[in-house]
């Protein structure tokens, strides 16, 4: 059914449709509306969820972990410093193999304190063992959230999943959206049936015991395997989702990449701006393309490298700096994927849009112009660049 909703409201609606057992959350801009809308669904009897209004994000994730370990399907939402305060528990959730679902509404990390959008929060959590999905629009935030539940709870995965989308740009802007019928969403995600859970009286277990050197490494290796398995499951779930909705999802979206000579790799809402620029360049006969990463963890190494192997120059845009003096996190992941698989393709890094700095089509045009000049001159020039900062 057709609706018009903000990204936050769309995710809250997805949560209502799923009717999880437990939601534990603490408000923080710009994700506050997710639990706020959801709390109204609880109050109005639209769901039977146990809503736990905790006193911090550390507690929110802790409550989610306890509930999920008990056998409950559990969800939460947060942003920025809230995600940072969950840090310790993010690792507990993933290493304990508890498929909590988190709406991660991207906002800059302090400091200086800033409430606007960039990706420094979830980029920092990229190696916490969570699956990370990124979405360009309200529709994708909603669709990814529903798929996240099914991906994380798959028996070969059992990992928590972040549904990442841009604060304010996606979370607060109201867009048209195609909602799935409640009963179809419920049927799609099904019942949460973990093999092991604390509330199972017939098969009691202990969760989170001390793991000494004799066993810890094997547990981490098994956890890593789950992340490796996730790529296939994500695609299987996407195929099932497409059969239900007609909306197609992959590991990343290729936009006009068939014959592209220059390309940009980007995440989330900026992809919309960049597609507009690609269309304009195409009208002028420029073979420009775009890759929008949807699945950032697990990272689609072979697929990204294959997609970029045909271009002459690529710019990887990061809405977070790594402060590694070598390029943004997406840049280092993409270029490491290209090593030995897409040799000879010139790759440059652009850090852009930090702290909600507006990203205009004219900014993106500058990047494509730079790529074209690299192709023409053969000289890559500066690899580590900033876009939109006042020089």
């Amino acid at each position, binding site marked *: 059914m057709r609706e018009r909703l903000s990204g936050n409201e769309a995710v809250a609606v997805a949560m209502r449709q799923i009717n999880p057992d437990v939601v534990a959350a603490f408000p923080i801009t710009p994700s506050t509306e997710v639990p706020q809308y959801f709390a109204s669904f609880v109050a109005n009897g639209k769901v039977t969820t146990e809503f736990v209004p905790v006193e911090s994000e550390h507690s929110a994730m802790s409550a989610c972990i306890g509930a999920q370990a008990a056998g409950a399907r559990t969800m939460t939402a947060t942003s920025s410093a809230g995600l940072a305060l969950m840090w310790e528990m993010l690792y507990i959730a993933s290493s304990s*193999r508890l498929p909590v679902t988190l709406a991660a509404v991207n906002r800059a990390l302090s400091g200086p304190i800033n409430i606007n959008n960039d990706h420094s929060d979830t980029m920092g959590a990229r190696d916490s063992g969570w699956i990370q999905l990124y979405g360009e629009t309200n529709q994708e935030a909603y669709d990814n959230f529903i798929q996240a539940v099914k991906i994380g709870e798959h028996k070969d995965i*059992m990992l928590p999943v972040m549904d990442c989308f841009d604060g304010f740009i996606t979370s607060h802007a109201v867009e048209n959206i195609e909602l799935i019928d409640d009963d179809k969403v419920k049927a799609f995600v099904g019942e949460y049936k973990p093999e092991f859970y604390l509330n199972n009286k017939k*098969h009691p277990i202990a969760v989170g*015991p001390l793991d000494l050197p004799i*066993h810890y490494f*094997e547990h981490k*290796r*098994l956890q890593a395997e789950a992340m490796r398995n996730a790529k296939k499951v994500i695609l299987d779930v996407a195929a099932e989702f497409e059969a239900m909705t007609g909306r197609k999802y992959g590991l990343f979206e290729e936009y006009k990449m068939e014959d592209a000579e220059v390309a940009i790799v980007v995440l989330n809402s900026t992809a919309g701006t960049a597609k507009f620029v690609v269309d304009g360049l195409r009208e002028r006969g420029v073979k420009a393309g775009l890759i929008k990463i949807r699945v950032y963890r697990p990272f689609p190494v072979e697929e990204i490298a294959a997609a970029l192997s045909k271009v002459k120059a690529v710019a990887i845009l990061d809405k977070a700096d790594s402060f590694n003096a070598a390029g943004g996190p997406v840049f280092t992941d993409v270029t490491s994927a290209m090593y030995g698989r897409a040799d000879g393709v010139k790759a440059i890094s652009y850090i852009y849009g930090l702290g909600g700095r507006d990203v205009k089509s004219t900014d993106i045009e500058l990047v494509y112009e730079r790529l074209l000049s690299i192709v023409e001159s053969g000289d890559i020039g500066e690899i580590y660049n900033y876009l939109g900062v006042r020089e």
Partner: protein
Amino acid sequence: MSKIIPNDVKWRDISPGGIITDAGNSAEFKTGDWRSERPVWLTDKCKQCLLCYPTCPDTSIVIDEEGKRQDFDYDHCKGCGVCKQVCPFGAIEMKPEGGNN
């Protein structure tokens, strides 16, 4: 899945998330070799008052079916010495482990 995770388990066979799939298996974990001092039960001084028994954090003071204490469970006693402290009759002595003692 086996009750006890063996020390030579391979990663594909280990429990997901470090869970322990059966409760009540702590007796399988021998902690006796943590001891630096060993409690020695002096039966001639012991009055069987049983003040020592509830203080043991490792239930390493064995009580028989008639309610009498027996010798220590040295597989699990960590040698903390709490039992010696509470004994009113000096019926427990701590002696260094190892060497010629």
